[in-house]
């Protein structure tokens, strides 16, 4: 239960961590962990590699917290580190010879581990699978702007590029994704609204 002053802000927790508080970082990370997991998983596309990426990012943020200068929100800073770690993983994977067609296994694993209502999961997995056809940079931009809801300006900080490039990556990603997602939605219901909770024979 928060005290009279409410829970400490993200910035406060980060400062406490830098000052040597051994609990502060854990509390901060826990706050954002689920969103950061979504970012890592959707950027990398594979749960095992996403876990690696998120762990890399967490350790990196832990150690580099002193570099945080407050030019952006803490959550923006955290997302930037996670996106970087995730894209790093993808680059390393691209440099390795392909070992398996990971995507199918990855999504099977996702289904197995999921506790969402089945229908929402179906649609989500369809979209998550479709996301994987995008080039990583476009996928990351679309993820940060459309799925995580960051402004183009914040997305530019997270993706370490210009707002114009963010817009253009998002635009190309949407155009590229459209036929796939439209097709998937068409299978579900002809006059479907955008709500993922609605389905045919529920």
């Amino acid at each position, binding site marked *: 239960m928060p005290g009279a002053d409410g829970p400490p802000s993200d910035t406060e927790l980060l400062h406490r961590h830098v000052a040597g508080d051994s609990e502060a*970082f854990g509390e901060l990370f826990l706050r954002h962990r689920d969103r950061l997991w979504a970012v890592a998983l959707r950027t990398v596309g594979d749960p095992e590699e996403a876990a690696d990426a998120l762990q890399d990012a967490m350790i990196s943020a832990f150690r580099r917290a002193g570099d945080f200068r407050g030019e952006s929100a803490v959550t923006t800073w955290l997302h930037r580190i996670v996106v970087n770690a995730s894209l790093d993983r993808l680059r390393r994977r691209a440099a390795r010879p392909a070992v398996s067609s990971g995507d199918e296994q990855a999504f099977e694993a996702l289904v197995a581990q999921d506790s969402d209502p089945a229908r929402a999961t179906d649609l*989500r997995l369809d979209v998550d699978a479709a996301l994987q056809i995008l080039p990583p940079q476009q996928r990351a931009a679309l993820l940060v702007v459309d799925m995580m809801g960051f402004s183009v300006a914040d997305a530019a900080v997270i993706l370490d590029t210009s707002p114009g490039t963010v*817009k253009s990556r998002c635009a190309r990603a*949407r155009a590229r994704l459209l036929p796939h997602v439209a097709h998937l939605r068409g299978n579900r219901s002809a006059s479907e609204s955008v709500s993922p909770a609605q389905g045919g024979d529920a």
Partner: protein
Amino acid sequence: MRGQKSHLDPDVLAEYRAGLITGRRGRRIAAHLDGCAECAGVGDQLAELSALLAALPAPVMPDSVAQRLDAALAAEVARRADAERAGADHSRDRKRAPRPARRPTLQLVMMRVLVPAAAVVVLAAGGYGLSRIVGVQSTSSSAATGSEAEPAPSAVPSAPRAAAAPASGTSFRAAAGTQKSAFTVVSSGTDFLRARLASQLEAALGALAVPASAESPSAQLQACVQRLTSGIKPGIPKLVEHARFQGQPAIVIVANRGTGYAAWVVAPGWVAPGCSATSAGVLDRTTF
């Protein structure tokens, strides 16, 4: 190219919608959209796509990943504390007479890490040799078995089969004096398999009541166990077992996390030099 004649490319439409196309070209696209239901429909779909993406439920972080992150964070916190302590020791050592730095430093770290368990640590001897159990349940249950406890808690907790204990364990006990480990280590020939890890671990816990040879952990193993389990209360492992994993020698660590168990399978080669801050030696993790 004149947009009015042919349909708009979805790329162009998406760029236009993102505000990337302005001026005369933008006005041409706007005019085309006014008169072309098909392209206007694609534009609507692009808007729906963004809304759909925004409304999509987030994937749930699997327990195994959460556990793994907890362990990695605990290790990182311990690493930082170690570094700070080592720095403090170092400056103090320079002021005082020099002393052998490495091993005493490790002991200091361990004593600090073990503090939460200190009250029950000496009573752990009560169960010693009676079962495969390794952890101490609680102070009260330990007190309940107090009559069975060794009268002298400071006695060296040598196992009946002390000869089987690794040299490092022996030297740790000798070096640490009254510092007694909070758990013991059993050995088995079990080959744990990734695919069946949870059910095998449940069976291993079920076998805990059966007496088996147990030995004291090495200082390095104790440190590793403390790091892995430090995010979990009560933080004392339920089972630490030398076994195999996927055919290779491995150490299995199981801790009670309240609603179930968390387990780690680690490589002996990671433990022997003192597990590093990275979790590179963790071969697998699970919860059950």
